[in-house]
């Protein structure tokens, strides 16, 4: 390509890391136009409400499962396909549950931002 200046191509990380030296200008007071401020306030309240349920579910799950293991040691002797049920509940079960939780919350958070 004649006439094109060659520029070093790098990952966004490296590029951003290098450019931070130049980009750091003076700090400015943040501003929002009135319409934007209203919408931002509405979105903020909506997302804050939406955040409660997934966080409760997450911490109930990751704190509750150890409690179940501690209270019901019999799960170690119960076997499914030869593998202790408690092992399966720890090695397999959390991952589909977390994936579903992520998908559910993603949909709710995006719907909250959708415009009519």
């Amino acid at each position: 390509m004649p006439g094109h200046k060659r520029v070093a191509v790098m990952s966004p990380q490296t590029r951003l890391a290098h450019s931070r030296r130049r980009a750091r200008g003076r700090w400015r007071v943040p501003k929002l136009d009135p319409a934007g401020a209203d919408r931002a306030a509405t979105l903020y309240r909506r997302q804050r409400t939406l955040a409660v349920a997934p966080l409760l579910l997450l911490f109930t799950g990751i704190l509750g499962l150890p409690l179940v293991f501690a209270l019901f040691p019999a799960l170690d002797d119960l076997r499914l396909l030869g593998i202790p049920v408690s092992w399966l509940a720890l090695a397999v079960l959390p991952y589909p549950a977390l994936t579903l939780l992520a998908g559910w919350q993603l949909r709710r958070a995006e719907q909250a931002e959708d415009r009519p």
Partner: protein
Amino acid sequence: MIIAFAVAPVVLVTLLIGLRGVAAMRTTSDFLVASRRVSPLLNSAAVSGEYLSAASFLGVAGLIVKDGVGALWYPVGFTAGYIAMLVLVAAPMRRSGALTVPDFAEARLASPALRRVTAVVILVIGGLYLVPQFRTAGLVLSAVSETPYWVGVVIAGVGVAVTLALGGMRAATYVQAFQFFLKLVLFIVPAVWLLVQVGPAARQEAVHPVEFTEFDHDTRVVFRVGTTLDFAEPTIVHIGQEERRVEGTWDVPQGTTVVFPRGTEVPELAGEARPGGDEWQRPLLDIRDSGHPLLSTWALVVALALGTMGLPHVIMRFHTSPDGRAARRTAAFTVGLLSVFYLFPGIYGVLGRVLVPQLYLSGATDTAVVALPAQVDDGWPGDMFTALLTGGAFAAFLATSLGLVLVVSGAISHDLLPGGLVRLRITPLVVSAVVVLFALSAIRLDAGVLVTWGFTVAASTFCPLLVLGIWWSRLTVAGAMSGVLVGLFTSSGAIACALFGVPLDGWLAILVAQPAPWSVPLAFATMVVVSLRGRPPSWSRTAMLRLHLDEDSVGTPADRLRALREGG
């Protein structure tokens, strides 16, 4: 041999991509524009590629061999962290325009002092995260090629430093994404092969563990660090050609290779339970065998779930998303991708307990994954799979270390010592050298444990700063500063106590070795109380609301400027 076949290609490909690979594929402008339009799926593969470090690839399986099935709580916590990230941080952080937490601190609170303090926190987290990467790379290289430990660490350090010096990580998002799929394949295929090849007897034994009390074949153990073993009965062991009778306690000198003959009783290791016992089988993690497995498991998952959002190299990755919505999608997809990967460490762990339990004697359980293929097959397939796993482990080490060294260097040269004194190009060399020095003395520390401490410091400092900064408009500079300092000193102080072996028992030992359950609430409380005693600046609420405004309504920068002018 193995180094040549496994590690050299990974390093060479990384270097080649760094030097010219990407430029040859597209024109510059195409590439730069494309990098801002990275799809969430591709970006989440890149996030996962950078996140899956040596601790995930090797450390989890090693901790299962050593501590038991409960070590599977590590990957659960590693994944759960992205839910907290998705709910609380991903979109607003992207909308703040900040690349790093120091940037965020300045954008939200306008405090250069807070910027410097958070940069120091990055150094602490980066150090705790980098040292185990280098250590594990050194350990694996020395295990598969019989070289001394320090050679492996230095090779790892030189690899990282040279790659960064030759132009940083030019390897772009899709290379990181490729790295993720590479690691996934290099992890899953050997796991399936091992399961098939190992035979029904070993599979049966894997799910019906018995305590490792007797060597069932002549077993060779290399002690790279000195260790104290307790023998219940007099035992004949072979050291080289020499036969030696040992009884009682025996201080094994550093660098000894000992062969334990078949049928002898396995010695006890001070302070460690033998793999396979009743405690080993429980799906709870008993840190330091303190007798409170439930508390210990809770402390661990809380630290991991809350620490993820503060990891400096992960936050930077989210900036590649075009907007907040895409950043949120990236976090959600990452949960799914990590979930696939983390289904497999357990297989290596339980097979490692059957086939290489002796690694726990020398404290080298982190090499269990790469030691397995040779136990199952001593022909070329075994060698090939060892090489594949070593390559994968090295890819994991490189991806994480490159990102972290870059972030740590950035924190030093932009936030701590600005003014062109320290150039970004030289800092990575210095950082790598310092990490190598630390790693040389850290051979005893398991990768999983050190990395978890990195998460703990992140959870006690950046988690409250980000969560309150994004969701609470009354946060003040004084509040944020005192909260970060309290979190930093309590968490790193407790870790230092655990590291230097302050003798403690029971639940107190857990709360010192894993301080998240009290240090995180303490940091949150400090921030709230100090902020409430002060008065936030008038623009504070706007600065917070701005983070929640979706991009569509803002439009292009030109529109925004026009709107501001017209609005007066």
